């Protein structure tokens, strides 16, 4: 299996060694829109044409700002992290119809020479609009440090709702906002992960939220305690039972019937209560989070 994967990846890499315009010219109407691999200033490559020019500009500026603003230090080595978004109308466009989205993202990342610095740190969101598949692919130690498995789940959460409603620009904006949050925490030395400071209640709901919940708990407790003491003020109640006066022998049963009627079943999906932290990196040096949108 690994061997097959290696062959596939090798083929894909070979494919991308050629100018992309040559490849794409073979596979349909979108070929003209894809000319060459992105230059250093391009972060948002919308080959599926789902964004307007102004939206692309806005996202480009945002991604560039994040790349410049945050520096992640791993093993005393400061690094910037490249941010890339690529949309494809379908995988056939690049002759990769039968390949998994995560293999494709690795191939693109390597063949287009994405990433920043000697370690090529970066994170790529690749989307196949036909299959509605996505893959978040990170490379380089600073990227793996910043975008943990848990962090990638949060990135998916950021765009999932918008993408489900085909609100692409909002989805990408939310995705970049979450990228920024994770870069910020990574820069502080506390990347977003299971049980990290970033996931504390304080960070999730903010101080007003904490105070709100605290007041709510206080109100409920006060109501329970005060109701208890208030109930002590009332001792006059109509009797609702005559248990003190029933025969000591209790009830003499003349008939006892227990008839089975039916069986019903209900199923509840158990959500895992804990997740392990860290980042899962494959043998090619990439970490992924794939799925459907």
């Amino acid at each position, binding site marked *: 299996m690994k061997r097959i994967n290696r062959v596939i990846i090798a083929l894909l890499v070979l494919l991308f060694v050629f100018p992309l315009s040559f490849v794409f010219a073979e596979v349909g109407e979108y070929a003209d829109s894809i000319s060459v691999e992105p230059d250093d200033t391009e972060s948002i490559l919308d080959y599926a044409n789902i964004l307007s020019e102004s939206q692309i500009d806005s996202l480009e500026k945002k991604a560039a700002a994040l790349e410049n603003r945050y520096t992640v230090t791993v093993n005393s080595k400061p690094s910037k992290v490249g941010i890339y978004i690529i949309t494809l109308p379908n995988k056939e466009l690049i002759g990769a119809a039968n390949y998994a989205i995560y293999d494709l993202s690795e191939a693109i990342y390597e063949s287009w020479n994405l990433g920043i610095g000697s370690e090529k740190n970066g994170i790529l969101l690749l989307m196949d609009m036909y299959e509605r598949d996505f893959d978040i692919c990170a490379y380089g130690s600073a990227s793996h440090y910043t975008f943990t498995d848990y962090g990638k789940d949060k990135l998916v959460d950021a765009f999932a709702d918008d993408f489900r409603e085909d609100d692409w620009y909002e989805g990408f904006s939310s995705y970049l906002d979450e990228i920024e949050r994770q870069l910020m925490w990574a820069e502080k030395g506390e990347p977003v992960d299971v049980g990290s400071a970033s996931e504390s209640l304080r960070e999730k709901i903010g101080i007003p939220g904490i105070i709100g919940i605290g007041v709510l708990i206080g109100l409920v407790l*006060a109501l329970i305690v005060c109701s208890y*003491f208030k109930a002590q003020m009332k001792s006059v109640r109509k009797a609702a*039972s005559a*248990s003190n006066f029933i025969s000591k022998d209790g*009830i003499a049963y003349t008939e006892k*019937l227990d008839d089975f009627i039916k069986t019903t079943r209900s199923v509840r999906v158990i959500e895992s209560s804990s997740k392990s932290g860290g980042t899962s990196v494959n043998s090619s040096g990439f970490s992924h989070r794939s799925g459907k949108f």
Partner: protein
Amino acid sequence: MTSVTNYKCPACTGPVHFSEKTGQLVCDFCGSTYTIEQMDELYGKKVEEQAKQEQEPQPADVEDSGMKAFNCPSCGAQLFCDSTTVATSCPYCGNPTVIPCQFKEKRMPDYILPFKLDKKKAKQALHDHYKGKRFLPNAFSDENHIDEIKGVYVPFWLFDGDVVADVTFDATSSTVHRSGKEEITTTKHYKVRRKGTTSFSRIPEDASEKMDDAQMDSIEPFDFEELKDYSASYLPGFLAESYDVEEDACMDRIKARIEPTVISIMENEITAYDTVNVASQDIKFTKTGCKYAFIPVWLLSTKWKDKNFLFAMNGQTGKFVGDLPVDKGKYWRMFSIITVVTAAVASAVMYFL
């Protein structure tokens, strides 16, 4: 004029009263004591004869007012009483007075449960009742003066009866098991039917319109093993009222108490299921007997902010009941303190989570 009876000391003719401590009659003047049997010998026949003689309407009935006029045998003062008053005391000379003719056209009590606790105990019980009541207004307990304490023999019906019950329940039992990431709950549903019979004895029901039913319910239970055959000799020193609620008028309340009792017992005995709920019920109560009894109750009344507060104590067991006023200031003060302190602690804990 309707006649009344003063129980007087055979030795000094002073007034006598029933002593809760000794269960005997004690002379207020010379301190002589007499057993109930001794007093019955002296006064029993007289009281019975008076009750019989005065079966006819009396000219002294005060028309349309529901009151009756009597002459105190000790001081001759004219007393006005309710038509249900059986025992009272003269407001002028203070002599305990029994009015046997009030039983005319009505049943004589079958039993009497003598007082075992005295007025001091009732006062003490009231103070104990205030203790630990955090919302009791300070002024209520500090400035409060008891307007009146009176020992009253309250008329009760004691019902005996048989019950035939046929109750159907919907019952379920559930098992839960895990399969991969799923939790599967399997619930088996059953129709459970129970038929049976039982009996109740001496279910007490307040037979006086004047008494609050809920208050009389609340001072239960009584130890009916200590019931005595009725004798007017237990009455001196206390008030007593004859019934003005007929026994049949109490049947709905009796049934309302019996039905949940039977169902509750059945439910508790159906133990093989996780949930048991009543689907249908057919519970028939057949009265097999009804006795008339005088039950001892201490009544304490007070007034605060133009509102009357009435407390009752079981004259046999000392169980004390009575609703108390709530100080809204204290209530909201405690509410606010708990809210603020809890909110601060909870917020601090959540901040560091």
